């Protein structure tokens, strides 16, 4: 077993210095709220940025984050054309609650279900909330774990940079 650890560590070290870029959303099937399959890799927004946010109906900080973004979402859309995609990882204990929950919250997001956490795993998300920013070419340019009030302002700065043709380091 020890033999495997060294190369693994080497691999990780190399990865950590590896050049970025070409990070796409993997091809994993999500369900939309009408029960249709949607390929996560096919999510697009006419060359404008997309925010992908992992959440669940039981996750208070997730709801805090999505509500904070929702308060400003109309302005964000007008100014940058950004689209927010909210991916719920609620399992069948709570997935039936997602539709009415969104109606109650008044969220204008595109919402998908990742019931058995396939996309969450494929994107190596540890805990939720976890937010990805995808640029107009479909590349993941930034990600963030957790939510602290005010994080949405930082996210918006990054979206604006992208929308103005800038890049994110």
């Amino acid at each position: 077993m020890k033999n495997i650890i060294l190369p693994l560590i080497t691999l990780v070290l190399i990865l950590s210095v590896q050049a970025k870029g070409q990070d796409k959303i993997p091809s994993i099937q999500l369900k939309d709220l009408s029960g249709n399959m949607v390929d996560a890799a096919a999510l697009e927004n006419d060359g404008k940025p997309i925010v992908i946010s992992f959440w669940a109906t039981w996750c208070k900080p997730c709801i805090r984050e999505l509500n904070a973004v929702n308060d400003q979402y109309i302005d964000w859309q007008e100014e940058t054309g950004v689209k927010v995609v909210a991916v719920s990882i609620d399992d069948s204990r709570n997935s039936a609650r997602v539709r009415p929950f969104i109606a109650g919250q008044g969220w204008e997001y595109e919402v998908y279900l990742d019931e058995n956490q396939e996309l969450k795993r494929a994107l190596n998300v540890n805990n939720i909330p976890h937010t990805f920013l995808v640029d107009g070419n479909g590349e993941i340019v930034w990600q963030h774990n957790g939510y602290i009030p005010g994080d949405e302002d930082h996210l918006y700065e990054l979206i604006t940079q992208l929308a103005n043709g800038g890049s994110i380091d």
Partner: protein
Amino acid sequence: MKKIALVMALLTNTILIAQTDERDYGQLHGNFQTNLQYYLQDTIIDPTGEAFPPERMLAAGFLNLTYTKGDFMAGVRYENYQNNLVGLPEGFQGEGIPYRFIRYKKYGLDVTAGNFYEQFGSGLVFRAYEERGLGLDNAMDGLRLIYELTPGITVKGILGRQRIYFETGDGIVRGADFEVNLNELKQEYGGTNLIVGGSFVSRYQQAQDPILNLPENVASGGLRVNLISGRFNFYAEGAYKSQDPNSSNNFIYKPGYALYTNASYTLGNLGIILGYKYYDNFLFRSERVGSLTELLINYLPPLAELHTYTLPALYSYNIQANGETGMQAEVSYKFDRGTLLGGKYGTLININYSNSYALDKNFTYRYRDSAQTDSTISGTDGYTVGGFPGVGDIRYSQDFNVEVKSKLNRKLKGTFSYYNFIYNRSALLDGVVDDRIGPNTKIEMVYVNAFIADILWKIKPRHSLRFEGQLMLTEQDRGSWASLLLEYSIAPKWFFAVQNSYNYSNPDPDLRVHYPLVSLGYTRGTNKIQLTYGRQQEGVFCVGGICRVVPASNGFSMLITSNF
């Protein structure tokens, strides 16, 4: 092992080359988590020292590595437990690579070899999944095929054995699922959609019991239907399981039945959900003998809200393996801004009710008291259930809660909630099974009222203070609790929190103690480190934007998570 090392080394070289080459060599990503906990002996909350580990310091962690290139994907997970944290399954010991897989898609065929997670329908028949915070991981090790015959018709097949700690279980699990989606079939989206599906799973485990004639093959199958129109959503799934004498049902031969259904309706600001569950002897493992979350083949949705505030989470509902029935109803409404109740920014109200009862069982013999042995029940059908709806006399739980969310002004947001629980402590915490409950058995019911105020104050850009006040009143069990939390955060990097829970009316005066807790978190990019010091009671624990399940303890802990 050396072969694996060689493969890894080769893979490493490939990546090295990838760096110097413009061609697409795919992407390699992963995540990492480690949790160290140093325990202090606490003679007040743990007078016998039972929960104080001899190691003093325990550590658990993992590293995931996923490689993707187009429709090709491969991954490994290294896990280490030196040893597993207190309160999590002790079976996780040592280190290794219990998870590795290769997956590719070609012409509509999706192939996975190695470990995988999968779910059929709502999980009644089959669900392989992981819940790290709970130490649950019943990943399959084998093969999975998913094939889209034509858009709208999908067939899945699975074959393999399930993970149990660092090994795989004895039982062979094989299954198939089909689903037909009318919208996708007709390529007409919008309007009403009908999705129907069916699933089948069978387990083989050799039997060598000297007394009982145990079935080696046990099968379970289900049918489901989902009707969705603009405002209305109806889902129903029914399932049947053949004779499955096992350690959880005391080796009875009664077949299992399950029905899970829910309907929801949304109209403008109004959302309504109704749900119903009926699970009779439906726990399914890939070995006959297993405990807790080991080797579960299926998943029974509890149909009860999952509470995450510290105090209500102390009375979380757990599914009762040998049978239960219940319902859930929820109404949510948003009062528009500018109305009397909506105020300036609008107000959201959510009312949830759920209950769970034991089934109305007529045991084939007298109820067992502690003097009788288990063998009196084994080998028979065990019981019959009275006619529909089959609700028994034993109440497991009732949960009524109301949540009101409101923005008071530009800087203040509040969530106020009320909870009323009736909680069968004997069944849900002490594990007293319904066939042990007779007319003279004392059942300990806990009646709880709880109030929570959660207020967020945005002091200035990036600086915020969150206050959480909780009061939970009960005359039973451990008595009443009060809890206060203050969380100061500076986006996007820092948070600092102090919390104190006080079990002020514990029937044992020595246990009327405080549970103070201090935590500090720092985030930089996708790296996050969190330090916590103090006493923690058991429950789902949310702080600094992350929720996880933690056991009771006293000491110092460090959690590091990272993505790359």
